[in-house]
């Protein structure tokens, strides 16, 4: 091409000739956009492993009964396991206060407007929260069935609660979070007697359609707590050898890529 008068410039390439004062270079990348979060999550997980802590990320929609389940769990297990809780909410430290009333250390993260916890928030919390002597750490995520699923916090296991007042097709409506779960806990099952629109078998079918053999168990955490299957699952996970070798990772989809 003539650089003096641009004599090979046609109507087809005129735009290119005018606009590209430089050369275009393409850089192939293939990097996860959440790589920074994931790096911090790996660091958090290593920290948990170093202290022999089993870290569980507890998720659900607001009001499904996460804190109530933790209260019942602590009452049942506190004499045998040392438990701690990191709470996540937009505002208030009401949930951390409820946990502390059970005699267990709890740290509250208030996110302001962030709709989920991320690895960096948990990392900062861990600086103020000594883990030595702790067996089991629950991270109670912000009540939300959408966003928490995408953010690895460094936990070993994902637990999602589904209350019987929410609808038995929730797994179909929120596939990302339910597929990322290691166990799905139905809560408030003592209300099934007065409800005519929740079928636990349908909820299980809806979960099974997400392509996993994720277990689903039933709990009632209030009044006369009935949480035996949950405690059994917890104790099995606590007993699993974790101290050496690669750490247990939760079922977040990217870790399971074929």
């Amino acid at each position, binding site marked *: 091409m003539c650089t003096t008068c641009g004599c090979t410039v046609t109507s087809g390439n005129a735009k290119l000739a005018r606009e590209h004062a*430089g*050369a275009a270079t393409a*850089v192939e990348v293939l990097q996860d956009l959440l790589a920074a979060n994931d790096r911090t999550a790996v660091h958090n997980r290593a920290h948990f492993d170093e202290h022999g802590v089993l870290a569980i990320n507890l998720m659900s929609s607001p009001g499904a009964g996460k804190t109530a389940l933790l209260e019942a769990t602590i009452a049942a297990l506190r004499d045998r396991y040392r438990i701690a809780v990191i709470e996540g909410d937009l505002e208030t430290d009401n949930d951390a206060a409820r946990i502390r009333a059970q005699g267990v250390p709890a740290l509250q993260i208030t996110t302001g407007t962030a709709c989920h916890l991320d690895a960096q928030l948990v990392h900062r919390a861990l600086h103020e929260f000594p883990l030595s002597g702790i067996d089991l750490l629950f991270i109670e995520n912000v009540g939300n069935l959408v966003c928490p699923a995408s953010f690895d916090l460094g936990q070993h296991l994902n637990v999602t609660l589904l209350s019987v007042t929410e609808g038995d097709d929730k797994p179909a409506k929120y596939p990302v979070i339910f597929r990322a779960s290691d166990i799905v806990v139905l809560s408030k099952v003592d209300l099934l007697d007065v409800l005519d629109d929740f079928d636990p078998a349908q909820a299980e079918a809806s979960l099974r359609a997400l392509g996993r053999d994720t277990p689903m168990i039933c709990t009632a955490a209030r009044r006369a707590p009935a949480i035996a299957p949950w405690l059994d699952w917890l104790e099995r996970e606590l007993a699993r050898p974790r101290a050496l070798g690669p750490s247990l990772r939760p079922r977040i989809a990217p870790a399971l890529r074929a």
Partner: protein
Amino acid sequence: MHELSVCQALLAQVREIASGSGAAAVARIVIEVGPLSGIEPALLERAFAAMRAGSCAADAVLSIETPDVRIRCMTCDAQSQTSPNRLVCAVCGGFRTRIVAGDELRLRRVELNVPLAAA
């Protein structure tokens, strides 16, 4: 929502690549956002339009590829394309599957304008 924080992460990665290549500006950014990534492409586009101002990507075009959800069956080993909330094998109906595609949230390619003197 967190499309903003994902956009921030995207621009940070793009900035690093651009400065590493001595580029004057970013012409195009290609990303993959799968239906199971938890991110909504339209919201990400809107966030990008707002957040790119003043950066090296101020005039960049954002191309979002949306791969289909593909699974591999642990029972019959077949690969099939499925909907995001029905991840069962289309061949044998098996419900133990692995996601092969559809959960991506990735930066694929950055097209840069490198000044002629440096090229």
